[in-house]
């Protein structure tokens, strides 16, 4: 699960991570009040107005502006709030900005990168640091991997002080700032662990002219599987940032990802769903979605799946691909017949059933009077998709 920058900073601050001061606002008036309260607190009269959307690269899209007065804050906040912000990480249509973070502008002496995530190769947490602050870590990894310092966390002993010191020395910190950097790294790691993050990334981490070590930006992703033990963090979810169809799918326990193609698909199992997308492409189409109905392909979930797929106007045909293991194909077939009737299916529908009671399932569909092409073999289904697209 993704959270906003201001939420990430709130989480980190609780663990003693030094973050840039800021207040979130959803209107221009609130933004001005936020700036006024920051001014009282820190004496600053320079503010940064930052669009709060989940996608990164906000600065490049015009979502981060410097403001030099309260009036300027109002003007900048007014311009950013409600805009469709396009960044390299949003879709081409952009993401609507619903809130802004009004932050204390910081005198930056130096910028760094600091990130924590899982190293899947080693099955250990890795802390990565780099002097190339403000640059995407993937770019640094590609162009100058020697500039990335890494420390792995031993699951038995945990992160040790000497490791944090090694990173801070490696980044070139000295004196008082060195101590602050070490504290920062240790606190960030504690926040990562205790909040069950899958990513905690500070880019940039800054050394200010005043000698402070501060997070100017913060990105946190949380492990969905661990949200059951973080009820407070689970509430930070912002469904406005998610595709409405994906939200609707999740409510029906379906795993849906919208894509840009013309053939919708509904499959049981993530691997088979990806393979079905691949075979759609081989059949001359483009997958319109990923949709995993999981182990419970019953009439209600099949109907929900159809409704979600049909909301995408690009879809020209639908392929249902079920490999019945525990799921019985005759039950799925009944579900398809019932659901197709309810949603008034007008598109070419191809249903491939294989596994437990596949022949019975196929017979139910063939005798249903429904306009449906049935298949038992995967290739047969692909061929029928192809002829549906050509016909």
């Amino acid at each position, binding site marked *: 699960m993704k959270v906003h920058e201001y939420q990430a900073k709130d989480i980190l601050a609780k663990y003693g991570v030094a973050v840039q001061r800021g207040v979130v606002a959803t209107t221009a008036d609130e933004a001005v009040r936020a700036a006024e309260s920051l001014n009282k607190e820190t004496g600053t009269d320079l503010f940064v107005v930052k669009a709060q959307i989940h996608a990164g690269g906000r600065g490049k899209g015009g979502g981060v502006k410097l403001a030099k007065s309260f009036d300027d804050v109002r003007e900048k906040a007014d311009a950013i709030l409600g805009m469709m912000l396009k960044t390299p*990480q949003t879709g081409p249509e952009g993401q609507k900005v619903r809130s802004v973070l009004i932050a204390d502008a910081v005198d930056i002496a130096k910028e760094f990168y600091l990130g924590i995530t*899982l190293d*899947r*190769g080693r*099955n*250990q*947490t890795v802390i990565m640091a780099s002097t190339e602050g403000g640059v995407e*870590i*993937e770019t640094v*990894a*590609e162009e100058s991997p020697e500039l990335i310092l890494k420390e792995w966390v031993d*699951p*038995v002993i945990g992160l040790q002080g000497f490791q944090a010191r090694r990173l801070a020395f490696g980044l070139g910190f000295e004196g008082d700032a060195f101590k602050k950097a070490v504290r920062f790294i240790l606190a960030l790691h504690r926040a990562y*662990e205790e909040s*069950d993050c*899958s990513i905690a990334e500070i880019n940039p981490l800054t050394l200010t002219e005043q000698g402070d070590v501060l997070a100017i930006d913060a990105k946190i992703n949380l*492990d*969905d*599987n*661990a949200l*059951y*033990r973080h009820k407070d963090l689970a509430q930070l979810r912002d469904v406005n940032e998610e595709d409405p169809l994906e939200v609707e799918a999740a409510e029906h326990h379906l*795993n849906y*990802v919208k*894509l840009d*193609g013309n053939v919708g698909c509904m*499959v*049981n*199992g*993530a*691997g*088979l*769903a*990806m*393979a*079905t*997308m*691949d*075979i*759609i*492409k*081989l059949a001359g189409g*483009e*997958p319109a979605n*990923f949709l*995993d109905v999981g182990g419970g392909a019953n009439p209600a979930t099949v109907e929900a799946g159809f409704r979600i797929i049909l909301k995408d106007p690009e879809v020209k045909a639908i392929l249902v691909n079920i*490999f*019945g*293991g*525990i799921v019985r194909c005759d039950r799925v077939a009944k579900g398809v017949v019932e659901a197709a009737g309810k949603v008034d299916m007008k598109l070419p529908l191809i249903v491939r059933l*294989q*596994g*437990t009671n596949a022949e019975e399932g196929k017979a139910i569909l063939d005798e249903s009077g429904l306009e449906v092409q049935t298949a038992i*073999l*995967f*290739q047969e289904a*692909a061929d029928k998709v192809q002829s549906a697209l050509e016909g």
Partner: protein
Amino acid sequence: MAILVDKNTRLVVQGFTGKEGSFHSEQMMEYGTPLVGGVTPGKGGQSHLKRPVFDTVADAVREEGANASVIFVPPPFAADAVLEAAEAGIKTIICITEGIPVRDMIPVYQYVKSKGAALVGPNCPGVLTPGQAKVGIMPAMIFSEGPVGVVSRSGTLTYEAVDQLTRQGLGQSTAVGIGGDPIIGSRFIDVLKLYQADDETEAVVMIGEIGGTAEEEAAEYIRDHMSKPVFVFIAGQTAPPGRRMGHAGAIISGGKGTAEDKFAALEEAGAVIVKNPAAIGETVKSHLSVA
């Protein structure tokens, strides 16, 4: 021989008396799997499905000589269940549970390794050796006995591959679903080593997915150590970067983990690449009959 489980397995089921555990235990027993008992803390001494229930895995090891475990325990308690099995000396631990937090799995991975046990999963369909033992949730009727080892990150796509093999008259030595999570006990390379060493396995079908680098790692092993032919399909050729495709591990991030990269690495390592998921069975068939 076969790998991981066979007729000499003495299986204990953790989460035996729960709904999932009960349903699949019945199916496993019906297949003839040597299932010697189950563990449900607090229900020790009872009998369930005509098998003894124990309070602890250690009790099942002592009383029934259990040497393998399958876990159907809910996610908040599953990591503990794996640790308990490893501590009790179980050497083959198969964890079906989906949804275990990564933070729980990191120490589990280390501990199981330190005990010299093999963990398969979590979030996997299990292991099936045709005619001998079905451990987990794979549908038995698509399997047949034979020389092809199957290893896969996915569930239903494993069934698809097995079914295609069986239709071509090619039976399986064992099929292993290693699971789709970021941290799994056995990776492709671990299972490939077992197949390479297994006399009854003549060829291997490997089914990968986008995300991570396990397939690239497997490619190195195939190039340097594998004398048996390996046939590979990678799911997610059409998946866009940055989007998680169901499995927590199936995500192309930072331009890494694409199907294209994985196919290229495996092809270079000498594996036979299958790009059409409907052609897995016939590709294996045509190569094996030529050889």
